[in-house]
């Protein structure tokens, strides 16, 4: 092949955003089209599918093929790009009648809760009807065409990627508006005479001819950049401009006059109804001009069935494994062995965090994997928790214990332990103290053994374990939940094994009665309810992350969020703890701590650390949450008392806290994951096993922080903020009657979330202490 041509054909720009958008749109269309085709093969024929996919392909060809890089050298190539966006892609997209397929192809919650209300909006329907009227559509199209062909604006687009995107978007949008009345895709019903289309297309062709003539016959180069770029081949800039004009002239005439000819024939010789004005309005299954029929959109009621969603237990092999009675033990044993190694190495190994399994495995790998597990699955660490294995031994030793004291049946003891744990982490640099880490792990084993040996149920997990409380709160943002599949089965069930247990399997030891359980709070994913249910009516099903935060229904084993002050305090501590924990490893905060220590004339930074900790974990949350609750109550004119308001709204901060924990732990995990290699080699060598080789300590140095990691951290915070804002808004909505009142009640909490988000963004841009590495 000619090397020049070969080079041209290999010049494909890489635009992943565009590719993802087009593929996603295509996939949604295909999904909806397949559904509709099953109902009406005649209407939803393959031609529609081909047309729509052809339209998407045209956009791809225009923006992500060799046309794009060469459009900077040749005006005619640039013109071809614009013709694809203005003449080819819009017409093909409308020929695919995309409204119903795109709607039906969307996931049901998006269709029902987000899109359907918009389609019902009289304002949107009215605007669409007016915009697609031939008069307005023609004006919009012609204005966009001439506006962007003014030399100054054309040059602006050529000189800036941003403006070039705007130009392309304007062309595509205005052309979609223009071609809508011409194609009239199903289910549109024009409320105007089709005869209007004759002058519509004719005048469009005339203005196109004028523009083409300007380009073709001009004796100077209209767009200066094309006079400056080097000429490829022997074509001068003026000849290139003339060629672009001819291309626009011929292609435009074909695009405008061929449909005009077809429409004219239809009006003169087609069915008599064709030219008649049809009253805009709803047909039984169709719609008016630009109005979408709603029955296809679905109703809210159909969302209630939990059986239709994804169920992890239905996944081949994995589902079978999880249904196996000893599945949990199988995942606990490897972690038990690892915990044994950590404790042994913590006490016997070198007392340098980066060289010891107790300094690396818990603080880099376990924390990173735990939070990622919560993000993609659910409370998998509690499922695999090694601390509860001795509990089973304790049960054999003493089968029936006493009930957990009534006054301790809350989260207060866990709150105290959590605060102590977070404080000790900073005050005693636990990440760099293998023997303390090992001691804490041992204490967890001992506490689980003693408490669950003495008391009934999983009292340690439910009321004491700080790690468990962390997991319970963060798993509210997880995408999976253990849940009843068919509520009707539970209504007829007399034996209630899920809570009472069966002969071989205990019922839920955390007192969560499945039919009345909603959310992951207090659920350890122990799978006992799944194994106990004789009807196989409990699954690990997909759920909307954070959706339980704004629902204040009564939950089995928990009660209502608004009545649980202990839970609210736990959530607030975990949220502020996330920011405090991350901030205390940044350079500015560490500098401040050192200066404060020097200023106080102290040798140890313990006092300064405690001071920071007290400010961030007690003073700041108290002031901010109390202030937000008071303002919320006053501005929203709420009837509840301040504590109840604070308890209810504190739950909505949880996603932001989760985002910060995710950001923090992923930072350590992705920058220091390789540190386990030399540490394991060293551990094996110490035990006399040289089969892993000499420790390669260079792996214990953290890697350079890549741009993608920073972006990922910001995305975690972004998503956390949006989920928090949405949860707060939904809570406000549930307590108010009208929009202004909702906004007033929500505003203080929204501001608090934005403040925390800004703090998170500040933290991720600071130089970080690389803990657990050399």
């Amino acid at each position, binding site marked *: 092949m000619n090397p020049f041509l070969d*080079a*041209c054909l290999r010049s494909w720009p890489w635009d992943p955003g565009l590719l993802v958008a087009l593929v996603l749109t295509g996939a949604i269309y295909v999904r909806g089209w397949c559904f509709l085709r099953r109902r009406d093969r005649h209407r939803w024929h393959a031609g529609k599918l081909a047309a729509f996919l052809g339209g998407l392909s045209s956009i791809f060809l225009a923006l992500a093929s060799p046309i794009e890089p060469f459009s900077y050298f040749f005006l005619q190539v640039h013109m071809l790009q614009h013709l694809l966006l203005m003449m080819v892609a819009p017409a093909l997209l409308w020929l695919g009648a995309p409204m119903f397929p795109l709607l039906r192809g969307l996931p049901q919650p998006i269709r029902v809760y*987000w899109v359907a209300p918009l389609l019902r*909006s009289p304002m949107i329907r009215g605007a669409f009807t007016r915009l697609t009227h031939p008069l307005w559509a023609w004006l919009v199209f012609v204005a966009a065409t001439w506006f962007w062909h003014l030399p100054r604006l054309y040059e*602006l687009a050529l*000189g800036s990627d941003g403006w070039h995107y705007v130009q392309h978007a304007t062309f595509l949008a205005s052309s979609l508006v223009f071609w809508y009345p011409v194609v009239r895709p199903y289910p549109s019903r024009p409320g105007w005479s089709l005869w209007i289309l004759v002058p519509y297309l004719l005048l469009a062709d005339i203005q196109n001819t004028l523009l083409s003539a300007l380009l073709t016959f001009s004796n100077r180069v209209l767009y200066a950049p094309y006079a400056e770029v*080097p000429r*490829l081949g022997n074509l001068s800039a003026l000849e290139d401009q003339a060629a672009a004009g001819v291309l626009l002239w011929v292609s435009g005439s074909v695009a405008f006059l061929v449909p005009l000819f077809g429409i004219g024939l239809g009006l003169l010789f087609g069915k008599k109804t064709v030219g008649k004005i049809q009253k805009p309005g709803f047909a039984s299954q169709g719609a008016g001009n630009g109005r979408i029929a709603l029955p296809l959109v679905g109703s809210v009621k159909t969302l209630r069935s939990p059986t239709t969603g994804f169920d992890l237990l239905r996944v081949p092999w994995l589902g079978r494994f999880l249904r196996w009675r000893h599945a949990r033990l199988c995942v606990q044993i490897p972690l038990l062995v690892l915990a044994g190694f950590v404790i042994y190495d913590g006490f016997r190994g070198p007392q340098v965090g980066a060289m010891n399994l107790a300094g690396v495995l818990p603080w880099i790998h376990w924390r990173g994997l735990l939070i990622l597990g919560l993000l993609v699955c659910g409370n998998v660490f509690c499922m695999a928790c090694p601390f509860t294995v001795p509990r089973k031994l304790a049960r054999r030793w003493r089968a029936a214990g006493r009930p957990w004291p009534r006054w301790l049946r809350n989260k207060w003891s866990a709150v105290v332990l959590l605060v102590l744990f977070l404080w000790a982490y900073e005050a005693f640099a636990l990440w760099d103290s293998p023997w303390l880490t090992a001691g804490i792990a041992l204490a967890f084993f001992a506490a689980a053994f003693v408490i669950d040996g003495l008391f009934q149920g999983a009292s340690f997990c439910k009321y004491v374990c700080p790690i468990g409380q962390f997991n319970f709160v963060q798993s509210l943002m997880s995408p999976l939940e253990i849940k009843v599949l068919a509520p009707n089965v539970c209504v007829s069930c007399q034996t209630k094994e899920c809570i009472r247990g069966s002969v071989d399997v205990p019922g839920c030891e955390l007192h969560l009665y499945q039919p009345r359980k909603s959310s992951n709070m207090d659920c350890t994913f122990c799978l006992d309810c799944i194994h106990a249910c004789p009807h196989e009516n409990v699954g690990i099903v997909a759920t909307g992350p954070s959706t339980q935060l704004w629902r204040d229904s009564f939950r089995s084993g928990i009660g209502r969020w608004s009545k649980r002050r202990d839970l609210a305090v736990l959530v607030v501590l975990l949220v502020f703890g996330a920011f405090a924990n991350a901030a205390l490893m940044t350079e500015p905060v560490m500098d401040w701590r050192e200066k404060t220590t020097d200023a106080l004339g102290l040798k140890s930074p313990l006092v300064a650390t405690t001071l920071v900790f007290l400010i961030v974990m007690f003073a700041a949350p108290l002031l901010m949450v109390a202030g937000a609750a008071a303002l919320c109550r006053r501005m929203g004119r709420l009837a509840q008392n301040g504590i109840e308001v604070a308890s209810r709204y504190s739950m909505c901060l949880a996603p932001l806290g989760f985002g910060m924990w995710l950001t923090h732990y992923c930072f350590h995990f992705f920058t220091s994951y390789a540190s386990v290699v030399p540490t394991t080699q060293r551990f094996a060598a110490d035990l006399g096993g040289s089969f892993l080789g000499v420790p390669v300590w260079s792996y214990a140095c953290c890697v350079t922080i890549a741009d993608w990691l920073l972006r990922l951290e910001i995305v975690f915070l972004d998503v956390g903020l949006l989920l928090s804002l949405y949860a707060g808004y939904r809570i406000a909505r549930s307590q108010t009657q009208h929009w202004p009142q909702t906004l007033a009640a929500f505003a203080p909490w929204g501001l608090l979330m934005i403040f925390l988000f800004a703090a998170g963004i500040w933290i991720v841009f600071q130089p970080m202490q690389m803990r657990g590495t050399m």
Partner: protein
Amino acid sequence: MRNKVLLIAVLTAWNVPALAYADGGTVRASEVRDGRRITVFTSPTFLRAGPLDVSVLVQDAASGKPLLDLPIVVTAYPILDPRRKISAPATTDAATNKLLHAAQLNLPEDGTWRIEVVVKGLEQEPAIGFDVDVAPPPPPWLGMSLWIGWPLLAIGVFACHQWLVHKRRPFSR
């Protein structure tokens, strides 16, 4: 004041149309050397300390035919300290437009920099050189402003959605 400067810088980077553009860059120099026309483009248009894309188009001066896969080296150094040179080979693989040769340099600081493009095998070396003014690097968060700011768009869309849905009727529970 600093915020205003930043705002102006951003708007300038967004708006300023330079003399000519190719492969997403601005034409900085175009000269004939040894029977070949060498054109150099830089991107972005508004130069700041940090990554800089340099693209080179080499053509036969007589026919205008592009010459491919030539050994080209791009070098940059501060005018005030020519010893601190940064070099990178320009290759067609690194270019989107495969008729060009592209190289990426990382300019560590602001000031006036000299860029030189050497096409190996030519009798006259360096083939082309020119000076560019490089502004200080933007604050790190500005480079990530889209990543930080996209929730604003989502919030705006959501607010419109809720306004359209609820402006006529109270909430249903």
